[in-house]
């Protein structure tokens, strides 16, 4: 294995494009585990942390551009991100321990392509986009379009994610992410749910995005969930309807951490609870 730490995007793309079996190294909290287990035997590892801008969080068009090497711990210390997208910050903050937080990144979580990745449903709910760079230049892509199947992404050879963009927080908007795990820390989501919504002057939902993780081969955007909420106050029957469509949309597997029935049920419960939290935040209150 070769290790390279280029200091420009172009040099990184050249290295990745020229070598079959090359892997990007961001925080390494997935990659190093796989190296050790010999699940991967890369010819080349390209460390992107020395590229200018990869560690920056910058304001852009009212939203935030987060460099691909920014760690969960750094996001959790950023007042602007906490104010605008607390659900995304909470989701990335759930990844692993303090030590893992010191290194883990959003793009690494996404590109590892685990169906249970915690930050991914939150990014989908927030309608985040990615700036992907590669041999053909750069392109912006919605988060939902990157995971292909467990362990696989839609990135082409030579491409990598340079940054994640969280759009401007809508006025009277709020987001939230919840996961269910059998413990209180350090576990893999049995179900995860991200919700982002906007309230109108009458307290009714005018826009919403509802996403589910760990209940299918990849993250899903539940359009029917948004439809159950839009035009209604986020309480009572609207939440019951939301829960029912989320349970129906889930396509989980049975495994040692949860049965199909349990996961479907929890998908509905988490959608309801995350919506309640997002609505409190949309009113400008803290939750």
């Amino acid at each position, binding site marked *: *294995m*070769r*290790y390279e*730490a280029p200091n420009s995007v172009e040099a990184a793309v050249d290295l990745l494009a020229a070598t079959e079996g090359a892997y990007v*190294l961001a*925080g*390494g*909290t997935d990659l*190093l*585990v796989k*190296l*050790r*287990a010999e699940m991967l035997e890369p010819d080349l*590892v390209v*460390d992107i*942390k020395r590229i200018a801008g990869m560690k920056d969080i910058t304001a852009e068009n009212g939203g935030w551009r987060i460099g691909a090497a920014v*760690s969960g*711990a750094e996001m959790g210390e950023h007042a602007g991100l906490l104010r605008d997208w607390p659900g995304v910050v909470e989701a990335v903050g759930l990844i*692993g*321990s*303090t*030590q*893992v937080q*010191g*290194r883990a990144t959003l793009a690494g979580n996404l590109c590892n392509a685990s169906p249970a990745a915690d930050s991914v449903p939150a990014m989908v709910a927030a309608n985040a986009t990615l700036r992907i760079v590669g041999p053909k230049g750069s392109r912006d892509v919605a988060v939902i379009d990157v995971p292909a199947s467990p362990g696989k992404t839609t990135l082409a050879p030579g491409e990598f994610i340079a940054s994640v963009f969280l759009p401007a927080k809508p006025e009277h908007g709020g987001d939230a992410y919840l996961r269910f795990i059998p413990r*209180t*820390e*350090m576990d893999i989501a049995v179900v995860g749910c991200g919700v982002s919504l906007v309230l109108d002057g009458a307290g009714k939902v005018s826009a919403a995005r509802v996403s589910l993780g760990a209940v299918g081969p990849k993250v899903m955007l539940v359009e029917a969930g948004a439809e159950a909420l839009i035009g209604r106050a986020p309480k009572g029957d609207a939440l019951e309807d939301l829960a029912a469509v989320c349970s129906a949309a889930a396509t989980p597997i049975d495994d040692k951490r949860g049965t199909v029935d349990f996961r479907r049920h929890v998908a509905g419960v988490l959608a309801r609870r995350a919506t309640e939290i997002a609505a409190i935040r949309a009113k400008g209150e803290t939750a």
Partner: protein
Amino acid sequence: MSQIHVTTSINGDATEFLCEAEDTLLDVLRDRLGMTGSKEGCGTGDCGACSVTVDGRLVCSCLMLGAEAEGREVTTIEGMATGDQLHPLQQKFIEMAALQCGICTPGILVAAKSLLEKNPDPTEEEVRYWLAGNLCRCTGYDKIIRAVMETAADLRRAS
């Protein structure tokens, strides 16, 4: 394949080493630099016995390549005492018997020190969450948590 030459700072000392691309920082510390205070419990980020700080951030040295340390500032358990003078956390762990076999102790001390630098007055819950990535098979955690809380209180009184 030629080895990678890395220049870094470890516990404030300028340090150079040669390593293979696949060597973790933990491999380098233990096997190339003879700094065996950091322990390998799992090698997969679960136990925290290998905890060090890099540029002030607490990380698992088993989940970082040695080559990544180029130009960084690394601190390990070996940098915790000042000469013969133990760090207050080390002293308190001995007084309160917050260890049994001791395998987890270096990692827990490094992690607890990093917490108290950030938050000198943590609640018990904050200590427990901060140390959730440091596993201990012996103590049942209670003495560890109490030792960290008491050290924090002592340090606050002293400052």
